[in-house]
């Protein structure tokens, strides 16, 4: 199991990564078509719902939220891993993040973009959504800043724009590389424009370093705040099963969890598709898997904390709701959430599986399934079993419209991500170079070779 070579020629790095930007294979187009078809399904369902009314989603009067909100949280959560890898690990100088953080950040951006869609899908009058935007308007009415939903909007806007900027800034040196190596064409023009005339001068690098670090510092609290605000949509409400103080950390943990799982999935896919074995090496996979395992245990713990706090909270209603999840109509989903979220990750504890690609692939998918279920189990049971017994509903089952739109959202994400991978280097070239460079320096020093041998001649 070999890690990334220190003596790898930098030219090769450029060549390999740029290779991933070249004209795609047929499989790409097939995938792309599938993705577009999925989006089509979603769009069709949304159109139907938009015209006919939310009723076709088969929500009912006590039970006013459904899969849209659940998926919204899911996608928001997914976005957190990018920040984790690029920001947190960057501050920790964990150099193994370097080959993989780029696509993680892309994932962050795109899952945020997907989550954003669900806001519109969920609204009863999506065409009036601008009422929720705080701008001086002729109506003289401002949105209600007390509503956690508005905090959401604000937080997500901040997060989305910041992570786009972060992604872009981090990509500038690589864009310059693309510019330098592209034969003339629209792509070259594009990269030239985006590279902003970067030439890697000392001045540029100096400011670049500081900026990158600063934004990383901002992103960490931001990411945490984003998901704790999403959590407060529920924790700030009065409903049993939602009004729980442990929700914000619980949500954040869940977010990182699903994010890491998604990274593993994409890691494996990219590694295979772009033949990035050189860079996305097994030791790196092992590290993420271990990280994911750790987080999964944190999540499990918080899950238990929630139950414990409810249990000792002496609120019969909250208790009732909790039991309803375990034994009520939602029981099958709740238990499969526990299975996927807390049992499956145990596999990751075993060395021999940590680098077993097929198994990790399946596991990562299961984890994400579990995380999606978790979000659903947070939203729905409370409605089905709230404070007021008279209105408990018996048969709220999401209609094909809800399922269709959720399905479509995955297509949408895939679409964006595939586009990105073909347009921008999904592995950060300059940072891989830094990585191997510093490693080589380290080994040299260790070997005590004092004569400045430079780096492997070629």
């Amino acid at each position, binding site marked *: 199991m070999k890690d990334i070579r220190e003596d790898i020629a930098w030219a090769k790095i450029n060549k390999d990564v740029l290779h991933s930007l070249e004209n795609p294979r047929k499989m790409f187009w097939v995938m792309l078509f599938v993705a577009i078809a999925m989006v089509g399904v979603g769009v069709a369902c949304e159109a139907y719902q938009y015209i006919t009314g939310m009723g076709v989603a088969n929500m009912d009067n006590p039970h006013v939220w459904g899969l849209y909100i659940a998926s919204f949280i899911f996608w928001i959560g997914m976005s957190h891993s990018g920040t984790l890898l690029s920001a947190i690990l960057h501050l920790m100088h964990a150099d193994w993040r370097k080959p993989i953080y780029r696509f993680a950040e892309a994932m962050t951006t795109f899952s945020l973009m997907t989550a954003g869609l669900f806001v519109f899908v969920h609204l009863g009058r999506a065409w009036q959504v601008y009422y929720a935007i705080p701008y001086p308007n002729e109506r003289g009415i401002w949105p209600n800043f007390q509503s956690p939903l508005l905090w959401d909007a604000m937080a997500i806007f901040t997060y989305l724009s910041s992570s786009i900027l972060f992604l872009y800034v981090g990509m500038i040196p690589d864009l310059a590389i693309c510019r330098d190596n592209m034969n003339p064409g629209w792509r070259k023009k594009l990269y030239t424009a985006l590279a902003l005339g970067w030439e890697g001068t000392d001045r540029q690098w100096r400011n670049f370093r500081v900026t990158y670090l600063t934004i990383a510092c901002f992103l960490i609290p931001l990411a945490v705040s984003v998901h704790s605000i999403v959590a407060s949509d529920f924790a700030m409400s009065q409903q049993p099963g939602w009004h729980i103080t442990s929700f914000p950390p619980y949500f954040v943990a869940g977010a990182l969890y699903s994010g890491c799982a998604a990274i593993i999935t994409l890691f494996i896919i990219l590694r295979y598709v772009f033949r990035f074995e050189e860079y996305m090496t097994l030791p790196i996979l092992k590290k993420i898997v271990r990280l994911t395992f750790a987080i999964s245990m944190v999540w499990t713990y918080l899950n238990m904390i929630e139950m414990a706090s409810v249990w000792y909270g002496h609120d*019969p*209603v909250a208790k*009732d709701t909790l039991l309803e999840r375990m034994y009520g109509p939602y029981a099958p989903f709740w238990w499969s959430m526990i299975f996927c979220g807390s049992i499956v990750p145990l596999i990751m504890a075993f060395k021999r599986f940590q680098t077993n690609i097929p198994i990790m692939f399946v596991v990562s998918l299961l984890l994400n399934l579990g995380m999606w279920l978790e979000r659903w189990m947070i939203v729905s049971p409370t409605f089905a079993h709230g*404070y*007021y*017994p*008279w*209105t*408990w*509903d*018996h*048969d709220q089952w999401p209609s094909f419209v809800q399922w269709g739109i959720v399905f479509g959202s995955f297509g949408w994400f895939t679409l964006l991500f595939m586009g990105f991978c073909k347009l921008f280097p999904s592995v950060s070239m300059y940072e891989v170079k830094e990585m191997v460079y510093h490693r080589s320096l380290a080994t040299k020093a260790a070997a005590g070779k004092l004569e400045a041998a430079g780096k492997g001649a070629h």
Partner: protein
Amino acid sequence: MMDSGFDRREFLKVLGWGGTTAALGGCGFTSMEDGKETVVSYVEAKDYMIPSISVYFNSTCTQCDMGCSISGRVREGRVLKLEGNPESAINRGKLCGLGQAGVQHHYNPDRVREPLLRTGSKSGETITWEKAYALIAEKLNGVSGEEIAFLTGGMSGHLKALMGNYLDSFGCKNHFVYEAIAPAVVRAANKKSYGIEMPRISIHKAKVVLSFGADFLGSWVSPVHFSQQYAQFRKGVNGQRGVLIQVESKMTLTGANADRWLAVRPGTEGILALGIINALGTATGDIAAAVKGYDKARVSKDTGVSAEQIDKIAALLKARTPSLVLAGSAAEGYAHGSQNAAAINLLNQVLGNVGKTVEAAATVPFPQMAPASGNTAALQGLNKGLAEGKYKVLFNYAANPVFTAPAAMKFKDNMAKAGFKVAFAHYLDETALQADLVLPLDSGLEDWGTHVPEYMAEGAQINIQQPLMEKIHANTRGMGDILLSLVKQRRAEDYKKYADYYAYLRDAFLKNKDAFGGKGIDDDVFWDDTLSKGIVKLAGSIGALSAKAGAAGLTLPAPAAIDAQFPLQLIPSVNHSLRDGRNTNQPWLQESPDPLTTIVWDSWVEIHPKKAAELGIAEGDIVEIASKNGSIKVQAYLFPGIHPDAISVPLGRGHEAMGRYAKGYGVNPFQILDAVFDKETGELAMHETRVKVSKTGQKVIVVKDEGPAGGRQMGKKIAPRMPTDKVDFSKEV
């Protein structure tokens, strides 16, 4: 006594369509029928018509026969909402849900709009009124009075008088007044016990009300009036809150509000009554003799009511006087219904309530206007005649026997034997569909009329019915106008001075101006005033009340043994808003949940959970209910408020016609009733049908308002309850 804090100033706006308004009819004043937005051209608007200001017209509710006075809110010439008229002693400004839905009868999209000749094509061809009248004249030509039959629902007032005159013009005696669910047996029993059919009862004066299946809060006699008495009864006189004990086999709305609800074995109400007389031990003479046999042991064995419960009741009745004992539909619905009712009335008499809480009612001094109250014996009579093919021409008005008559009576087939069938109808209901000629009627809010309520609350009153707005459909006619035209066919001379029914009414009123307290008032003033009041209050004459009917000939059969083949008693329950199904096509009523089961838009069968467990039936199972005379398939609802040996299916649903809101919703239990009749009165014994229940294997989700918690509060203080000894009413306002 009620808080009718309704703003008086509103009532300055209350108007009657004055003499001038009579002209409105023809002059194309309304453009409603060609669907234009402007109902009234404001160029020539009447002075009371101010845009955006509501005016109120007083009239009478025609949703049922209780005769509540309504006051319709009219804006821009459209009636929007019906309120109660505070001046009426009957409803005192209140109006039940059924009454509220009157506007949906008026605006109903499925009303008949043109005269239809239905011979030949099933859909029927549209004809003109002239043609229709000519046709009737032709068919009546050379037909003797005996060969004509007129079937109507309950009738009163001038319409009844005019009707009488019309029938007299043939020397026809065959006026059958039919009501599918009427307290006919109780009327007869009352006649015997008290000397009058419908005495005034004063729930609010009683300290204890013992009701044997009289659903006086839901559907019995005059619920709107009784509900208000009930409210006062609960407040009680000097803080002594009234106690309600309800004895019945299936919990009615009244039972649901009782302090003690006793599930009695079906048909043994009378036995319990005698048992209580026995337990009181105050009876003397033949009464004492009659009840001697009814000791607690036997009574509680027969009725299933525990001995100590009987004692408690007796004790309470002794301790708190006056009390009031009521005999209702649950008691009368058996072959021995009359005896049940008699026994129950006897209890009243023993308790000395007669004259205290049961009083003589005032009656209108015009016998020809007095209500002809319907019953089922009448239908039986008509049916026999039809079966024998006695009638060449059959008129039908305000009755739907094809829907409400038990299939066992074969009414539909017998009706076909009549040569020519005319139906005066608002909708194409089951009966109208069998008619050869269907004549479209004005809605209750478009028509003129007078009504004399059967139950007189205080003093005597005649209710005026006047149009609340212009006709919606140009080609509908008022029943009065139709009758008038028909009478003219016979006696043109006597009636030619009446241009229309309005003229007839006005004239009739002015003739008796003095009697109506209009002595020396100018005609127009008096008339307009009468119309704007909507009620004419009369001195009326108080009938004599007798309280010495003994126990003579009072024999009660022992409870029927369980029939092995048909083990269960079918109780067709009367829903307070759907009743016999004439209002089922009003969506508000379809969607307003049944108070006890909260089920909407469908029928159901109520089964006691214990019984259901025996039969392996769960909520939502489609079960087949089979009697000797047919079967129905309906969803099951587990209902604790019913005797385990009985099941109950609500009446009113299961229409096969009558428009989009009624057709195809639920089942019609009338169809499977056994044709068993009360021995004395010949009334259909509604509760005498025995059935068996079997699962069909299908299952549905019951459409109801109640959630899966099924009326449990899960330990929350949502609808708590206190025993009287824990409450201090004196502190209350």
